[in-house]
């Protein structure tokens, strides 16, 4: 049992004392003290380092999936098309130190950012993935010609970059499959880069604006000349009508911007130019142009699906998905509006910064010190990050740092889904185990204690249930549920119950066997002779003696139920997407492209599931070892 503390008698007097007076009381108690079985089991458990490690990891996991969703609530409808299959990285906001003092332009659409400093160097940071082996198609790989040139302007699309050198050369790199740059020959619906810009040069001092959209690029000159190229058929539907307005109607553009599918601008005389697009025609129930009236539009900015117009009297007009701007205090005047892919940022004349729009990736969480007067004079909003500068020095940056575990095929954060999926998997496992244990214990207890025809009947029922092939039957039942018009929550709840209903037979047989053995012992006879009710003997006297077996079985069953749930969900018969579980997160990962190139999509859910189940099994195994008196004897 416990370590015996065999204190050798230290001197002759003590030996005499023990010989004639017996051991001291303390000594006897020390030697003969024994712990209750449960206390002993706990003590033995904590003497096994592997089991303790497993317990700590498991508790950490459980806390992770219980507390995690509080900080990372899941939005089931959330997707981010610009961040599909982003690898784990936290570099999306790590602006190079050269850029911190002298930024000339910062631009981004999706997961990577391009910046040009005042010395004419181009920097890229963030993450970009291409299937192509061709290094030229990797936008992060800045071509040598660009590195050697003195760049004045740069802009990034979703998969290409455009830069203008001080000699007027236009450089492009990245993907050029849909005429993002330099591709001559026109495919249907695509506008190639104009020949005079490929072969000739541009007058740099005349360039008013260089912007990139999704697979689109536009250069606007001071004299109103407009060059646009790229995948116009899909990404710039109103291009022809804008060209018409510029070339035929003599509209002189002053500023332009791209949304996901169109191009908009403001003219020199302050008109909002939409081409033939009618998406943003209505503002507050009124025709937008009429609402603006004679007031001049002085600034325009756009996200993928929204536009903000700044009027000369400092009124903001929000068109599209983002419907309302920030509340500005009395007397504030807006200096400039900038936009990322999903949000807007404005700076006021007094130097305060406000951000609004979709802040799902922290783009709109403006740091506290930027809400004070004179905090910043320029804010570069680029994609999902913001960099605030004052007097050419970086003051503060905020937005999306990156994804710790990458994103999946719909741009959802894998970490978020692992946390929320874990909660679902564990809940289903726990409920199923509770259901199966309740049934198993009751059936086993009654059957074992009462015996006779009750036992016979219950055991036959148990045998019939255990003859049902588990996985196929579970598949059929959930297929039935899918056909019905149940709510998703109810369906999941029923799946839990089904898992429980199909897996109680093992425990019932186990409990019955144990109770059969216990029933013959003296304490039961004693209880019976004292006239205690049968049911009380079965559940109050005998059951506690088999509780150790039940605990072990519970632990191991919990792991099994979690595995079953993930298998069902993996096959598409359990919890349905978009609701995540550790099983169905692996659903789309069956092909070798995902396995090889987007490893983060399967490795993290698989790892979490495997580690949790391994820990539970180690704990269950250790519990069985320490609660089994036989294993103790053998050692």
């Amino acid at each position, binding site marked *: 049992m416990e370590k015996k503390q065999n204190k050798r008698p230290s001197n002759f007097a003590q030996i005499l004392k023990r010989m004639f007076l017996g051991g001291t009381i303390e000594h006897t108690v020390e030697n003969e003290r024994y712990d209750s079985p449960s206390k002993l089991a706990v003590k033995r458990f904590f003497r096994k380092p592997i089991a303790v490690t497993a317990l700590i990891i498991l508790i950490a996991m459980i806390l992770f999936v219980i507390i995690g969703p509080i900080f990372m609530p899941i939005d089931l409808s959330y997707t981010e098309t610009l961040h599909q299959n982003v690898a784990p990285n936290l570099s999306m906001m790590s602006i190079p130190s050269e850029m911190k003092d002298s930024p000339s332009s910062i631009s981004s659409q999706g997961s990577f950012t391009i910046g040009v400093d005042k010395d004419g160097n181009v920097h890229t940071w963030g993450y970009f993935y291409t299937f192509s082996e061709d290094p030229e198609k990797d936008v992060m790989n800045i071509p040598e010609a660009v590195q050697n040139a003195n760049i004045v302007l740069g802009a990034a699309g979703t998969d290409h970059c455009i830069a203008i050198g001080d000699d007027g050369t236009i450089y492009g790199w990245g993907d050029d499959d849909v005429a993002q740059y330099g591709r001559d020959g026109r495919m249907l619906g695509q506008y190639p880069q104009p020949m005079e810009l490929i072969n000739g040069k541009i007058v740099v001092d005349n360039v008013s604006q260089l912007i990139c959209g999704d697979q689109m690029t536009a250069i606007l000159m001071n004299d109103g000349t407009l060059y646009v190229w790229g995948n116009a058929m899909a990404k710039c539907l109103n291009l022809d009508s804008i060209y018409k307005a510029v070339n035929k109607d003599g509209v002189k553009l002053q500023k332009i911007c791209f949304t996901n599918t169109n191009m908009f601008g403001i003219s020199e005389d302050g008109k909002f130019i939409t081409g033939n697009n009618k998406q943003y025609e209505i503002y507050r129930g009124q025709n937008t142009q009429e609402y603006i009236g004679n007031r001049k539009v002085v600034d325009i900015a756009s996200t993928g699906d929204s536009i903000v117009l700044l009027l000369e009297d400092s009124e903001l007009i929000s068109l599209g998905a983002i419907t309302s701007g920030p509340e500005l205090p009395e007397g504030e005047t807006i200096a400039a509006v900038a936009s990322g892919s999903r949000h807007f940022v404005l700076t006021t004349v007094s130097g305060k910064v406000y951000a609004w729009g979709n802040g799902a990736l922290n783009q709109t969480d403006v740091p506290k010190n930027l809400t004070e007067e004179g905090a910043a004079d320029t804010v570069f909003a680029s994609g999902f990050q913001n960099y605030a500068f004052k007097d050419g020095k970086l003051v503060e940056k905020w937005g999306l740092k990156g994804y710790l575990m990458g994103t999946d095929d719909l741009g959802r954060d894998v970490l978020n889904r692992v946390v929320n999926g874990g909660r679902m998997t564990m809940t289903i496992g726990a409920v199923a185990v509770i259901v199966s244990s309740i049934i198993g214990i009751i059936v086993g207890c009654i059957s074992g204690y009462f015996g006779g025809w009750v036992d016979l009947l219950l055991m036959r029922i148990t045998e019939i249930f255990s003859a*049902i092939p588990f996985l*196929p039957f579970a598949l059929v039942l959930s297929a*039935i549920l899918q056909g019905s018009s149940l709510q998703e929550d109810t369906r999941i709840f029923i799946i839990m119950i089904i898992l429980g209903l199909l897996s109680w037979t093992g425990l019932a047989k186990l409990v019955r066997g144990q109770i059969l053995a216990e029933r013959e012992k003296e304490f039961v006879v004693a209880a019976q002779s004292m006239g205690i009710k049968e049911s009380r003997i079965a559940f109050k006297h005998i059951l506690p003696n088999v509780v150790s077996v039940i605990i072990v079985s519970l632990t191991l069953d919990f*792991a099994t139920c979690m595995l079953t749930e993930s298998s069902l969900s*993996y096959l598409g018969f359990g919890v349905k997407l978009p609701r995540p579980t550790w099983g169905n997160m692996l659903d789309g990962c069956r092909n070798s492209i995902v*396995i090889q190139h987007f490893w983060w999509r399967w490795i993290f859910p698989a790892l979490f599931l495997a580690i949790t189940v391994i820990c539970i099994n180690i704990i269950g195994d250790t519990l069985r070892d320490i609660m089994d008196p*036989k294993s103790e004897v053998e050692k």
Partner: protein
Amino acid sequence: MGKYVLKRLGYVLVVFLILSLLMYLVYAMIPFDRARAEVEQYKTIYKNEPEKFEAKYQELRKELGLDQNVFVRYLGWIGIVPINGQYQGLLQGDFGYSYTYDRPVIELLSEPMRNTVFINIIATIIALGITMPLGIFCATHRGGKRDTFIQTATIIGYSIPTFIMAIVFIWLLAILLREGVEALTGLDINIFPVSGMKTPGSDYKGIQKLLDELHYMALPIIVMTVGSLGGMTRYVRASMTEALSMDCIRTARAKGLREQVVVYSHAWRNALIPIITLVIGWFLSIFSGSIMIENIFGLNGMGQLYIGSLNAKDFEVVLLIQMFYVIIGLLGNLVVDIAYGIADPRVRVNN
């Protein structure tokens, strides 16, 4: 013995009837009308005559026996009660009709059945070949460093679900290994094909066909074998440990028998009894376990057919495969008990 087997067979029959009724009722609950699906093809013909269309629908319902009570339909499916004046059920050898494949179900099953049995038998034999020596080794070296290591490894082994193991093995063997070989030798060899049953377009015969199939099924078989190693090793080790602690072993050792004789003759014979249950149980669980494997690797097996039919709402196929699983389970239990009698003389005496 003969009487015992007969009694057990009768019991199997009763349980089968109860379970098949249960299953049939469950399938009847599925909100799906076969007659409605079949009548769709007449929609263009009876475009302007809704009454005739409805009449056709009723006719089809009657033809399929859907107008009957579910219990009557069940008895008809078994073949005791005539449907539309004809006995056509399991007893008459009519196992149903697949509407997706437009063939009798029984014709549909032969190829998938062959494949499933093929991979299961190979995987189980390999797994047994590895786990039995390993389990005995662990039991005889109980508590040692190597035993502790193997024990931990087996826990990890049986904790990882099949689909994760499959993904990991595809990654290691079909992707990394292929890339590695390509980098070393410059040859792009498809060492472990990820999907498919045979070389596309090939028409091998005899031994070459078998080798080709083995080549294509190598990865699923490896995954299946590795997946069953953990649980099996633990089981063999546990029963061997139990056997080694018996009194007869102490006696055998006391009378000076060689350790090899003690372990392989005395202990092993005793350990074999629970292992028989394991082996047979394993064959059974592997039938439903291969649902995952077949689904992942796209093998044309019973599991794949099952899921495919379930998705296509081809319920006669599903029902029959389900019944096949039930029969396998029940007969398996019977075989376990008979095998017990053969392996364990005590059981024989009791009967």
